[in-house]
C-alpha cells in the first residue's frame, strides 16, 4: 500500500512477531495463571508483562527512523486480513502501557494482600493480564473492528478488576456497575460508528478506510459515523461530560488497578480518538474543524475547569486525583483540538508526562494506605512528619501535576500554552491558567494537612513499606524530575508521533533521526487551509460569528511563525 511500510524486520525471527507477541502473550498466560497460587500467579503475570514490554520497546525502537511496521495476522494481507500496524505513535503508546503495566505489578504485588484475600489473587492477576492485553491490542491493531474487540476485552476485565475492590470498599460494586453500563454504551456507540464507516467504504482496515473516504468526502453517513465514534471514544477517554464513571472507578478499585488505569486507560482511548480523527477523517478537514471548534475544544475546557473545581471540593484523596485526571484529559483534548503540529505534540507530550505524574501520585496514596491506612484528606494530618519521604515524593509528583519548573509537567504545559498562543486560542489559555490555579489550591490543601496540622490520633500503628514498592515509587517520581530536566527525548517521541498523525491518509511523513518534523508540502497547504476559511467551509456553512472569525484570523502567519513552518525551513531538503 504505502511506501515506507515494512512487513518484515531483519534479524532475530522473534522480532518478526514482536507486535503480535506483545499483545497475545499476556492473553495466553492469563488462563494459565488461574492454575497457580498467589505467588506463582504473580510471578507468571510479571514475566508475561515484562516480556510484552520488551517486545513493545524493541518494535518501537524499530519505528524511530520513521518506518511503519505492518504485521499481517495469519498471513492474510490487509485490507481483508487483520493488520497490526506499528508506527512511532502506537509504538510509543504500547511502550508506555506495558511499562506502566510492569510498574503497577511491581508496585502492587507486595501490597495486594492488604485489600484482597490471597485466594482471589490468581483471578485478579488473570483479569489484570486480560485488561493489559486489551489495551495493548487496541494500540497495536490497525483494524477498526479489532479495536472494538480489544476495547471490550480490556473493559470487561477492568470491570472485574474494579469489583475486586469491593472486599475493602463496598462502594466498588455500584462504581463497577456504573462503569459497566457506561462503558458498554461507549463501546456500542463506537462499534455503531465503525459500522457506518464500513457502510460507506466497505472496509475495516483503518488505513484503507482513510484512503477510501477520500473520494467520498463529507457525506451525511460519514458525519453520523464520526458522531458515534466521537461519543463512544469520548466516554472511554472520560471527556467531559462523559466522565461520570471515572471518579468512582478510580476511587474504589484496588490501588494497583487505579495506578494502572490512571496511567493508561483513558490515554489509550485518547490515542484511538487521535487515530480516527486525524487519519480516518483526514479527508474531510472542514468537518474536523467544526468538530474541534464546536465540540472537542469547549468540552475540553469545561472538563479542565469542572474537573479541577471538583478536585478542590473533594476530601477523599483517590477521588480528588481522579477528578484531576478528568481535568488532565481536558488538557490533551485541548491540545489535539488545535489541529496544529505544536498542539498535537504538546498533547502527546503532556500525555506521557501525565502517565508518570498520576501513577506516582496514586502510588504515594497506595503507600500511605498501606502504611497507616490513609483514605481522606483529614487522615493526612501530621503525615509530613510520619512519612517524610513518601510525602516528599508525592509533593514532587504534585508539583509536576501543577507544572512547577524543573518538573515534567512544566515543560509539557508550557509547550501546550505555546501552541495555544500560536493558534491564538484565548479561552484555552485562560482555562489552563484557571485550572492550574485550582490545582495549586488542592495541592495546597494536601500540603496544609500533611505539614501544618498535627495528627489527632498521635502515632498510628504502621505496617512496613515493602522495599520493592518504595523503589518503584521513587523511580517513577525520579522520571518526573528527569523529564523536567532533560525533556528532549520525550519531546522527540511526541514529535515523531505527531508526524504520524499529521500525515493523515497521505504518504507517511518522513522523520529524520534528530526528531525534527519534515512536513510535506501538502501538509503545509493543509495547515494554511485550516488557518484560512477554505472553499469547503461554504459547503458546511460554518456559522460566521465573531469569535470564530477572530480564531481564524489570529492563526494567520506573521503574528507568530507557526512552529511547524519554522521547523520545515530548518530541515534539510
Amino acid at each position, binding site marked *: 500500500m504505502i511506501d515506507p511500510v515494512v512487513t518484515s524486520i531483519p534479524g532475530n525471527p522473534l522480532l518478526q512477531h514482536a507486535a503480535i507477541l506483545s499483545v497475545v502473550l499476556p492473553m495466553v498466560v492469563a488462563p494459565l495463571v488461574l492454575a497457580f497460587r498467589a505467588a506463582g500467579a504473580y510471578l507468571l503475570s510479571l514475566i508475561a508483562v515484562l516480556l510484552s514490554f520488551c517486545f513493545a520497546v524493541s518494535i518501537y525502537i524499530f519505528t524511530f527512523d520513521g518506518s511503519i511496521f505492518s504485521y499481517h495476522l495469519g498471513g492474510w494481507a490487509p485490507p481483508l486480513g487483520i493488520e497490526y500496524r506499528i508506527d512511532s505513535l502506537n509504538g510509543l503508546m504500547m511502550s508506555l502501557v506495558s511499562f506502566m503495566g510492569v510498574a503497577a505489578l511491581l508496585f502492587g504485588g507486595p501490597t495486594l494482600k492488604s485489600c484482597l484475600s490471597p485466594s482471589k489473587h490468581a483471578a485478579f492477576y488473570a483479569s489484570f493480564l486480560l485488561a493489559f492485553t486489551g489495551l495493548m491490542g487496541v494500540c497495536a491493531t490497525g483494524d477498526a473492528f479489532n479495536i472494538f474487540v480489544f476495547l471490550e476485552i480490556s473493559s470487561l476485565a477492568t470491570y472485574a478488576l474494579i469489583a475486586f475492590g469491593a472486599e475493602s470498599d463496598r462502594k466498588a460494586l455500584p462504581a463497577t456497575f456504573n462503569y459497566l453500563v457506561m462503558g458498554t454504551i461507549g463501546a456500542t456507540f463506537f462499534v455503531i460508528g465503525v459500522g457506518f464507516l464500513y457502510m460507506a467504504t466497505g472496509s475495516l482496515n483503518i488505513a484503507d478506510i482513510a484512503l477510501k473516504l477520500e473520494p467520498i468526502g463529507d457525506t451525511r453517513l460519514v458525519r453520523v459515523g464520526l458522531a458515534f465514534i466521537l461519543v463512544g471514544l469520548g466516554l472511554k477517554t472520560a471527556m467531559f461530560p462523559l466522565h461520570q464513571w471515572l471518579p468512582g472507578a478510580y476511587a474504589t478499585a484496588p490501588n494497583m488497578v487505579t495506578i494502572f488505569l490512571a496511567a493508561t486507560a483513558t490515554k489509550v482511548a485518547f490515542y484511538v480518538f487521535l487515530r480516527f480523527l486525524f487519519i480516518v477523517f483526514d479527508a474531510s478537514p472542514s468537518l474536523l474543524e467544526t468538530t474541534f471548534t464546536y465540540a472537542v475544544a469547549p468540552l475540553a475546557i469545561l472538563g479542565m475547569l469542572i474537573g479541577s473545581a471538583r478536585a478542590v471540593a473533594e476530601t477523599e484523596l483517590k477521588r480528588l486525583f481522579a477528578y484531576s485526571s478528568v481535568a488532565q484529559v481536558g488538557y490533551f483534548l485541548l491540545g489535539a483540538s488545535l489541529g496544529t503540529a505544536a498542539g498535537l505534540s504538546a498533547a502527546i507530550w503532556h500525555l506521557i508526562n501525565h502517565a508518570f505524574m498520576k501513577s506516582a501520585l496514586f502510588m504515594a496514596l497506595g503507600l500511605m494506605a498501606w502504611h497507616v491506612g490513609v483514605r481522606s484528606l483529614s487522615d493526612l494530618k501530621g503525615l509530613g512528619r510520619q512519612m517524610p519521604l513518601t510525602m516528599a515524593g508525592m509533593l514532587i509528583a504534585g508539583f509536576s501535576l501543577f507544572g512547577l*519548573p524543573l518538573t515534567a509537567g512544566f515543560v509539557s504545559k508550557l509547550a501546550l500554552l505555546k501552541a495555544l*498562543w500560536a493558534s491564538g486560542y484565548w479561552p484555552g489559555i485562560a482555562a489552563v491558567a484557571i485550572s492550574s*490555579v485550582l490545582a495549586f489550591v488542592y495541592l495546597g490543601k494536601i500540603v496544609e494537612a500533611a505539614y501544618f496540622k498535627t495528627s489527632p490520633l498521635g502515632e498510628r500503628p504502621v505496617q512496613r513499606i515493602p522495599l520493592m514498592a518504595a523503589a518503584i515509587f521513587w523511580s517513577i517520581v525520579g522520571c518526573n524530575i528527569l523529564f523536567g*530536566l*532533560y*525533556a528532549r527525548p520525550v519531546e522527540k517521541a511526541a514529535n515523531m508521533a505527531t508526524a504520524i498523525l499529521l500525515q493523515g491518509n497521505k504518504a507517511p511523513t518522513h522523520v529524520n533521526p534528530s526528531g525534527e518534523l519534515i512536513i510535506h508540502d501538502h501538509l503545509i497547504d493543509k495547515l494554511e487551509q485550516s488557518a484560512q476559511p477554505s472553499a469547503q467551509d461554504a459547503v458546511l456553512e460554518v456559522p460566521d460569528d465573531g469569535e470564530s472569525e477572530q480564531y481564524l484570523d489570529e492563526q494567520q502567519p506573521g503574528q*507568530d511563525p507557526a512552529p511547524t513552518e519554522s521547523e520545515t525551513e530548518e530541515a534539510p531538503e
Partner: protein
Amino acid sequence: MNLPLLFTLTISGPILAGLVALVLAKLPYWRDTLIVLIAIVTSIFAWKLSFLVPDANFDKLALLQIADGLEIAFHFEPLGAVFGIIATNLWVLTSLYAIGYMRGAKEKNHARFFFFLSMSIFAAVGIAFSANLLTLFVFYEILTFLTYPLVAHKGTKEAQRGARIYLTLLVGTSVGLLLPAIAWTHFSAGNSEFILGGFVGEFPVWQRNILLLLFAFGIGKAALMPIHPWLPNAMVAPTPVSALLHAVAVVKAGVFSILKVSLFVFGPETLHATPAATWIAMIAAGSILLASLIAWSKDDLKARLAYSTVSQLSYITLGAMIATPFALLGAALQIVMHAVAKITLFMGAGAIYVSTGAKKVSQLTGLGRKMPWIFGSFMVASFSLIGIPIMAGAWSKLYLLKGGIEAGLWWSFVVLLLSSLLNIAYLLPISARALFAPGVDARNAPAFKQEGGGPFLTVFPPVMTASLTLVLFFFAPQIADYLRPIWETAS
C-alpha cells in the same frame, strides 16, 4: 582564572559551607571556624569574579538544556556581580555574628541553622547570575524553601505561625503571579533570556501592563505593599537571619529581581511606554510612606526595623519603575547602601537582645552608655538610611531624587523627602534616647544578663558594617562607574 571557574567556585562555596555545617555538627568550634573561612574565600572569589565581569560582555554559561528555549543558565553582568559581592561579603560578617549570637542567646540546633544559612547564600548567588527568567524563578523558589526552616527555627507556636505566613505568601505570590508572568513572557516571546534593554517591546500595551503588574506583585520578596506581611512575620527568626536574609539576601533578591525585570525583560524604553510602570511607581511611593508610618508606631525594635525595610525596599521598586538613568543608578546603589546600613541595625538589635534581653524601643532609654559601640554604630547606620551626607545612603537617595526630577515626577520628589523626615522620626530616637536622653541614669536601663555584656562577636560585626557605611560614601562613584553599562541603557 577564567570566569566559569570563578563562578563555579563562588556558587559552590556556600554549598560546601552547608555540608561542613552538617558533617561537623558535633565539633562546633571547627565547624564555625571552617564556615567563616569558607565564607571569606567565597567572598574573595566573588570579588575576583566581579573584576572579570566588565570584560565578560554578558557571557552566558549554560548549565542544563531542558528543551528548546528552556535552559538553566547563568550570565555575567555588573548588577548581578554587585549583588553577589554584597551577599557573600555580608555573609562573612553575619557568620561571625551568628557564632556569637547563637551562643549568647542560647539558641538550639546550630548545625541545622548554619546549614540553611549557608545554603541560602547559594540561592542568592544563583539569583544574582541568572541568565533567564526560568533560572531566576528556580533559585527564587529555592531561596524561599531554604529560608523557611530558619524562620521557624525556634519551633515555638509563634515561630511556626510566622513561618507559615512567610511560606504561604511568598510561594503563593511567586507561583500564582510570577510563574504565569514568566510562562506568558516565555511563550509569547519565544524565550525568556535576559537581554539588556528588554525584549517585550513588541507586546501590545495591555499585555505589558498585565505582565508588569504580575511581575511587581509576583516578586513578593520585594515586599511591595500589600504583599509585605511576610516580612514582619519573618522577624520571629533568630536575629542573624533577620540581619542577613531579611535585610540583605532575601529582600534584596526580591528587589534585584524587580530591577532585573525592568532592565532585562522590559528595558527602560519599554517601561516608559507602559502605563503600569507609573501605577507601580505610585504604589511603591504609597508603600514608602505607609510603611514608614507603621514603623513609627511600632515599639518592638525588630518590627520597627522590618517595616523600615518594607519602606526602603520600595525606593528600589520606585527607581526601577521610573527607569531614568539616575533613578536606575539610585535604585542599584540603594541595594548596596541599604543592605549595609540595615544589617548594622539588625545586628545591633540582636546584640541588645543577647546582652540584656530587651526587645522594645521603650526599654532602651539610657542603655547607650553601657553599650556605646552598639548604639554608636546604630546611629551611624540610621544616619545612612536617612540619607545624611558622608553616609553612603546619601548617594542613593540623591540619585533617586534626581531621577524623579529627570522623569518630571514631582510627587516622587515629595515622597522621598517626606520619607527622609519619617526616617528621622522613627530611626533616630532609638539610638538618640539610648545615648543622650537627659536626666536618665544608666542604672534605670535594663541590666546585662552577664557581667560585661554580650559576646565580642555580637559587637564587632555591626561596628564593621557601620564603618562600611562611611567608607562606601567615598566609593559610591566607583560603584556607579562599574554599573555604568546598566544604567546608561536608559539614556
